[in-house]
């Protein structure tokens, strides 16, 4: 089934859907321009703006549901942005509204959580301003009806991500991590920009309607556009080979890691691939590359996750891995789109819940992040333990919880497409079972390995309630979306649907194998980290452990391939500048200076020698005159 037609729309709640973007943007502007005067109530304004955006989102969603299934793609024209080139408008359709609800819903919960988490931070108002800025930019990214608007949002979330990773800029590591994220993302943006140039020269338009409608035509360079869009997606979504920034991005405050670097922004790449699906369907090569990138990243992220002792970095590896699943599904075409977005939504719930849980643990343990210093926290932090546990069960795909439905769907779809991809995804699921169990057992079970001055306590209600709501989503979200193909039917007008939707086979061979592998992984993690003693200092481990601890040598590779040659280039340029350019200029000056120094020795101060030279000169002039006169 092809995607439905796009209809212009005015009036109703959909007509004012721009409020969703405008409100958080206004909040950010007030908080940033108002300065210290807004310190006392700034966080409440931030939360209120995010919640208001959520309310508008829900009303828009309800109004959209009221329309016929084929009528659910509405464009709201706003203004002429670049005359003759870009008319800015918002595309409200099942795909964008799914994102809107995730961003504003999870975003609002994380706003509320941050009131408690950041309560002792002197920069709390600034933090909420950036969070609001992020929400506005992310909503523009998913709601814009053209590539230019999407790109503005894309860069906006990049800016917010940079500002929030480096929020504690007094820490050099945070400042460096922020710059790293920004620079790596520039590589991806280069791909996205060139893709947009190609789109403009090919179609003469940036709007999704005409561009995607004609993406399948014969003369369209769909493979090139697809691969360049994938490069952009890789940068934003931390997929191989542009994954290196995500682990360092954990330097930001934990709510940021939960909202931006787990639940929403890093999934923008998946949105881009699904939204531009028409290009990928017209280019099987690009599709193949997308699936390969997805599988490689889901395995790489899982392997990194198995070896990290920093709880946030282990979760970041897991995020990479789960986005790898989404990219894999998005590369499969219409059969995978619904699973990709469904997994994205459920992942938003359970990963946000686990990140916030990790934040709650850090809050209790004096900002300690090393899991080797945790252990046995289940008894003192019951709510955090329960909500984190539900998120953990959801992500490893415990039967009937969220992750089970959506991840199993992706594995089934991949299996349908190519058994190699499918089985690699199954192995990834087994690894997920191991590394998430490792995180869970090391943190909440086993012996207490706390620091002397640690007095863990449960977090305040303003932090636990968001956890509880998110864990409800991570328990029931998957079943709600997948059972009866509900989400696929809802999404199909926006992204199309396969001829025959994939039925759900709970007792298929891959499904059973996945469950067995997950059980083995979890069991191994229990014997190694739950039941037995966890050493306080990480053991040296084998070559493979080091490989995983060093992020699969991704940083080392970047360093030797790009950083060092770049440094040599700058050194060469500096040398050329110092010796070549400066040498020429300085040499000329020195030459003139030296010769004039010699020349002034003629000025001896003896009046009689001046007189002699005058006489001599006069004689020469007289002789010359005589000579000329004679001629």
């Amino acid at each position, binding site marked *: 089934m092809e995607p439905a037609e796009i209809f212009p729309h005015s009036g109703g709640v959909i007509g004012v859907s721009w409020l969703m973007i405008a409100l958080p943007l206004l909040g950010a502007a007030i908080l940033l321009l108002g300065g210290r005067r807004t310190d006392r109530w700034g966080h409440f304004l931030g939360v209120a703006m995010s919640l208001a955006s959520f309310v508008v989102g829900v009303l828009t969603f309800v109004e959209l549901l009221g329309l016929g299934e084929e009528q659910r793609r509405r464009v709201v024209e706003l203004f002429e942005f670049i005359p003759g080139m870009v008319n800015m408008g918002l595309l409200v359709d099942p795909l964008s509204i799914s994102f809107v609800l995730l961003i504003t819903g999870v975003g609002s919960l994380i706003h509320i959580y941050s009131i408690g988490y950041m309560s002792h931070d002197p920069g709390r108002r600034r933090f909420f301003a950036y969070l609001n800025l992020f929400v506005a930019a992310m909503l523009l990214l998913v709601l814009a009806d053209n590539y230019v608007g999407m790109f503005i949002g894309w860069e906006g979330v990049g800016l917010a991500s940079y500002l929030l990773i480096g929020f504690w800029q007094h820490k050099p590591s945070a400042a460096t991590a922020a710059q790293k994220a920004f620079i790596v993302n520039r590589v991806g943006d280069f791909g996205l920009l060139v893709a947009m140039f190609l789109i403009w020269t090919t179609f003469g338009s940036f709007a999704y309607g005409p561009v995607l409608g004609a993406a399948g035509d014969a003369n369209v360079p769909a493979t090139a556009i697809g691969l360049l869009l994938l490069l952009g997606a890789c940068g934003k979504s931390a997929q191989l080979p542009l994954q290196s920034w995500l682990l360092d991005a954990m330097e930001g405050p934990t709510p940021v890691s939960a909202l931006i670097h787990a639940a929403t922004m890093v999934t923008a790449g998946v949105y881009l691939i699904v939204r531009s699906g028409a290009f990928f369907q017209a280019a099987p090569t690009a599709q193949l590359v997308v699936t390969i990138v997805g599988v490689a990243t889901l395995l790489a992220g899982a392997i990194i996750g198995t070896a990290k002792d920093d709880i946030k970095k282990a979760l970041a590896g897991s995020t990479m891995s789960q986005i790898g699943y989404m990219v894999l599904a998005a590369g499969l075409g219409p059969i995978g789109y619904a699973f990709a977005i469904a997994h994205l939504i459920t992942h938003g719930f359970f990963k946000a819940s686990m990140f916030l849980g990790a934040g709650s643990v850090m809050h209790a343990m004096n900002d300690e992040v090393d899991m080797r210093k945790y252990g046995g926290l289940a008894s003192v932090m019951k709510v955090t333990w329960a909500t984190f546990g539900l998120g953990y069960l959801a992500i490893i795909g415990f039967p009937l919880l969220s992750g089970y439905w959506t991840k199993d769907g992706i594995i089934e779809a991949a299996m349908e497409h190519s058994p190699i991809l499918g089985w690699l995804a199954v192995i990834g699921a087994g690894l997920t079972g191991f590394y998430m169990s490792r995180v869970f057992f090391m943190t909440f079970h086993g012996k207490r390995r706390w620091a002397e001055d640690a007095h863990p306590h449960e977090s305040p209600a303003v932090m636990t309630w968001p956890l509880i709501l998110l864990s409800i989503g991570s328990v029931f979200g998957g079943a709600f979306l997948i059972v009866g193909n509900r989400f696929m039917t809802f999404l199909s007008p926006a992204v199309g649907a396969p001829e025959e939707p994939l039925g759900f086979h709970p007792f298929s061979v891959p499904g059973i194998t996945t469950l067995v592998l997950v059980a083995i992984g979890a069991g191994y993690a229990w014997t190694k980290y739950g039941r037995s003693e966890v050493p306080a200092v990480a053991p040296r481990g084998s070559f493979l452990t080091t490989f995983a601890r060093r992020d699969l040598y991704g940083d080392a590779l970047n360093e030797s391939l790009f950083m060092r040659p770049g440094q040599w280039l700058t050194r060469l340029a500096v040398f050329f500048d110092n010796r070549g350019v400066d040498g020429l200029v300085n040499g000329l000056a020195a030459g003139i200076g030296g010769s004039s120094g010699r020349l*002034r*020795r*003629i*000025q*001896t*101060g*003896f*009046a*009689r020698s001046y*007189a*002699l030279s005058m*006489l001599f000169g006069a004689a020469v002039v007289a002789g010359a005159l005589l000579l000329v006169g004679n001629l």
Partner: protein
Amino acid sequence: MTTHYLVLSALLFSIGAVGVLVRRNAIVVFMCVELMLNACNLAFVTFARQHGNLDGQIIAFFVMVVAAAEVVVGLAIIVTIFRTRRSASVDDANLLKY
């Protein structure tokens, strides 16, 4: 007739020029300069007589006025230098150099 005056004028000028170059005493150098000026005057007057007009004689008066002014200023400088340095040698007054 004219030739004799011109030869005398050239001789006087040469004596003056050599005196300026070889003598150290500022007073003597000064007198040699006067000698050169007056040699010129002689040549001017000679040519005026030969051409039968007064142009050369007028120029001679100008030269005399300039020479008088020069003597006033120059002698004052020489006396001042002698008072400060106890010397009237032109080679000693060599501070204004590189």
